C-alpha cells in the first residue's frame, strides 16, 4: 500500500465524491459561534433549507460576551442582538448550545476539546480561522467563511481542493521556559505569514511529541498565522488519554473501537510531504513580536530591525510602517520595550496549562507600577473553575491581575476589553495586526510566562533567566 501522510488519510476517509480535482468532503463536527453564523442561518430560512445533521453541531457565544459580571447582561445593544440571535437560531434548529450563562460556556476552540466534541480522525469546521487548533487531535480542522458555514449546515459537506502537505519537524529538547507559542512564532518568523498558504501542516519530531495537548493546540492554533488553513499532530497516548472520559467522547466498547482506529492516525514512515521545514527545538529562544504581523518576530535577546538594512523597497516600507505604528525606534533591544497592559487569554493561550504557567511566574510577586491593566481571561467556565480549585485565581489577583469571565475578550476586542490608542500590550493572543486589540493599540505576541514576567518588570524580560 502506498505510504500516506496523516492529512491524506483524513482527507481520503471523508470523500463523498470527486470531479476534476474538486472534492465534496464530509464534515463530522461543526462548531458555531455568534459572529459568523447569523447570515448562514438566515440563508437557510430564506431558502427553506433544514440543518442536515443537528447532532454534528456545538454552538457557543464567545466573541461578543462581556468578561465582567454576567448577571448584568450585555450592555452593548448590537452585541446583545447578535448573541440573542444565536440563542434563537439554536432553539429554532434544535442545536446543542452552551449559552452565555452556562458554566460550560467558553471560547469555541477551548470547549470543543474540553467536551470531547473534538475527536481524533474527525473533519472539523467552524466559521473561525483558528479552527486549525483542533488538528492537535489528529483531526482535519479548518476555518471557513459564512457561506461555507451555511453550506455545511445544509449539506454536511464542504467543497474542497486538496492542500499540499508540509511537515514541520521540530527535533531536540526545548529549553526551560520555552513553550509551544515560541515554536509557533519561531516557525512563522522563518517561513512568513504566507509560508504555509495552500498547505496543511503536520508538526512532527521530539519537541512536538513532548508537548501536552494544550501545547499542541497552541501550536496548531497558530498554523493559520503561518498561512496554513490546517495544522495537525499525529495521535499518540497523550492524545488518547486527553480525550477519554470527556462528556461527548465515546465510552466502553465504542471507545475501544475508536482507539484502534485512532492509533492509525499518523503519517506512514515513508510518506512524502511536498515540503519539509526543520527546526531545532533546543535552539529556540523566547519569542516576542515587534511589528504588525506575526512574522515580525525576534528573540527576546534581539532588537527591532533597521529598515535601512533592507534592500527590497516593499519590505523596507513594511518595516518602516510597522515601526511607526508600533511607536518603536529601529535597533531597539526588545528587553527595553515598556508595557502598558497585559492580556493572558485567547484560543491560543487560555487553557489550564497556560494559566498554571503564568501563575507559576507570578506567585508571590506584584505587577510593575507602569502596568495600567493586567487581565486573565480563562478559556472556558470549566478552565476557570479548575484554576480556582488550584488557587491560581488568588495568585493572579494578589499579583494585581483582574480575574475575568471566559470569552475571546481582548484578543480581538469585540467586547469592552480593549487597548486605547497608543497603549502597548504583552499579549498571549495570536494576531498583532494594526487595531486588532483596539484602534491604535500596539500588540506584542508572547507566551503566557513571558507575558507574566513582562508584567512584573513592566518591560519584556528573558524568562530563561527569570527567578
Amino acid at each position, binding site marked *: 500500500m502506498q505510504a500516506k501522510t496523516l492529512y491524506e488519510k483524513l482527507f481520503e476517509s471523508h470523500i463523498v465524491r470527486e470531479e476534476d480535482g474538486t472534492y465534496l468532503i464530509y464534515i463530522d463536527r461543526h462548531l458555531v459561534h455568534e459572529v459568523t453564523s447569523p447570515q448562514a442561518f438566515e440563508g437557510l430560512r430564506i431558502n427553506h433549507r433544514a440543518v*442536515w445533521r443537528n447532532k454534528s453541531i456545538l454552538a457557543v457565544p464567545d*466573541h*461578543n460576551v462581556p468578561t465582567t459580571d454576567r448577571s448584568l447582561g450585555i450592555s452593548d445593544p448590537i452585541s446583545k442582538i447578535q448573541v440573542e440571535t444565536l440563542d434563537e437560531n439554536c432553539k429554532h434548529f434544535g442545536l446543542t448550545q452552551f449559552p452565555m450563562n452556562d458554566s460550560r460556556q467558553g471560547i469555541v476552540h477551548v470547549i470543543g476539546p474540553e467536551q470531547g466534541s473534538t475527536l481524533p480522525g474527525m473533519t472539523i469546521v467552524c466559521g473561525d480561522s483558528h479552527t486549525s487548533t483542533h488538528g492537535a487531535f489528529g483531526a482535519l480542522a479548518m476555518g471557513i467563511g459564512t457561506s461555507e458555514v451555511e*453550506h455545511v449546515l445544509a449539506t454536511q459537506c464542504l467543497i474542497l481542493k486538496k492542500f499540499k502537505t508540509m511537515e514541520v519537524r521540530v527535533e531536540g529538547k526545548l529549553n526551560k521556559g520555552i513553550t509551544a507559542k515560541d515554536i509557533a512564532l519561531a516557525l512563522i518568523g522563518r517561513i512568513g505569514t*504566507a509560508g504555509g498558504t495552500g498547505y496543511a501542516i503536520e508538526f512532527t519530531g521530539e519537541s512536538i511529541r513532548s508537548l501536552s495537548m494544550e501545547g499542541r493546540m497552541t501550536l496548531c492554533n497558530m498554523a493559520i498565522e503561518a498561512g496554513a488553513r490546517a495544522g495537525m499532530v499525529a495521535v499518540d497516548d497523550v492524545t488518547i488519554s486527553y480525550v477519554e472520559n470527556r462528556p461527548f467522547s465515546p465510552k466502553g466498547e465504542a471507545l475501544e473501537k475508536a482507539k484502534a482506529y485512532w492509533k492509525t492516525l499518523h503519517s506512514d514512515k515513508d510518506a512524502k510531504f511536498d515540503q519539509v521545514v526543520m527546526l531545532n527545538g533546543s535552539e529556540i529562544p523566547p519569542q516576542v513580536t515587534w511589528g504588525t504581523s506575526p512574522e515580525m518576530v525576534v528573540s527576546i535577546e534581539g532588537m527591532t530591525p533597521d529598515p535601512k538594512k533592507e534592500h527590497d523597497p516593499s519590505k523596507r516600507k513594511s518595516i518602516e510602517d510597522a515601526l511607526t505604528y508600533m511607536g518603536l525606534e529601529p535597533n531597539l533591544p526588545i528587553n527595553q520595550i515598556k508595557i502598558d497592559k497585559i492580556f493572558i487569554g485567547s484560543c491560543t493561550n487560555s487553557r489550564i496549562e497556560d494559566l498554571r504557567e503564568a501563575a507559576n511566574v507570578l506567585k508571590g510577586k506584584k505587577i510593575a507600577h507602569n502596568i495600567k491593566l493586567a487581565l486573565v481571561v480563562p478559556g472556558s467556565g470549566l478552565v476557570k473553575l479548575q484554576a480556582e480549585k488550584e488557587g491560581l485565581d488568588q495568585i493572579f489577583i494578589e499579583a494585581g491581575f483582574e480575574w475575568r469571565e471566559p470569552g475571546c475578550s481582548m484578543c480581538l476586542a469585540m467586547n469592552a476589553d480593549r487597548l486605547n490608542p497608543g497603549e502597548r500590550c504583552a499579549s498571549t493572543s495570536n494576531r498583532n495586526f494594526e487595531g486588532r486589540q483596539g484602534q491604535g493599540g500596539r500588540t506584542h505576541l508572547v507566551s503566557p510566562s513571558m507575558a507574566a514576567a513582562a508584567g512584573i518588570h513592566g518591560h519584556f524580560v528573558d524568562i530563561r533567566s527569570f527567578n
Partner: protein
Amino acid sequence: MNPFITHTGIVAPLDRANVDTDAIIPKQFLKSIKKTGFGPHLFDEWRYLDHGEPGMDLSRRKKNPEFVLNQTPYEKASILIARENFGCGSSREHAPWAIEDYGFKAILAPSFADIFFNNCFKNGLLPIVLPNKTIDILFKAIYANKGYTVTIDLENQFIVLPSNEKISFQVDAFRKHCLMHGLDDIGLTMQHSESIKAFEQDYYQKNSWLL
C-alpha cells in the same frame, strides 16, 4: 449572486503587503447580523481619521486625505491592486462583503490568504493572482497614469490593459463556472444528496463510535 463575465474599471493602488481582514473590516462592524451595509466601513481605520462605530453618521466623519480611496479618481475605482498575502487573518466573510458592497469587482495581488480567497468567489468577487513582476509593472503604470483602467475578461481569462496588451491569468474551472453563472453552490451540492446519504450509511457503519 450577480454573475461575473467581464468588467471594466479604474484600478486603485493599495501599496501594502499582508492587508489583513481586521484592516479590511474592523471588528466593531462584525456585530451586524446582516450581509449588507459593510461598504461604508471598508478599511475604516485607514479611510477615516476618527474612530468608527456602527450606525455613525458618515457625513460627519473626517476622511483621511492620505488614503488612496479618498483621492480622485480612486473613489470611483472598482478594481483593487495590492501586494502579497492579501486578506490574511480571520475567516470573516464580512471582509469580501465589505469590498463587494463598496463597489469592487476584482482584486489583483501576487498572493491571497486561503480562506479569504475562497470567500471572494462566494460573493461574486474575483481575486486574481498575478506574478510579483506583473504586479510591480501595474503599480508603476497606475502611478504614472491616474485613472488607469483595465478590462477583466473572465471567460477568456485575461486582463486588457490601456495599451491593449493582454495579461492572462489562471482560475479554477469550477469556481469560474460558478462565478460566470452566479451559481449558489449549496444548490449544486444538494443535487448530490443521495451520494451524501450513501456515504453516511457506510461511514457510520465503519465508525459507529461517532454515532
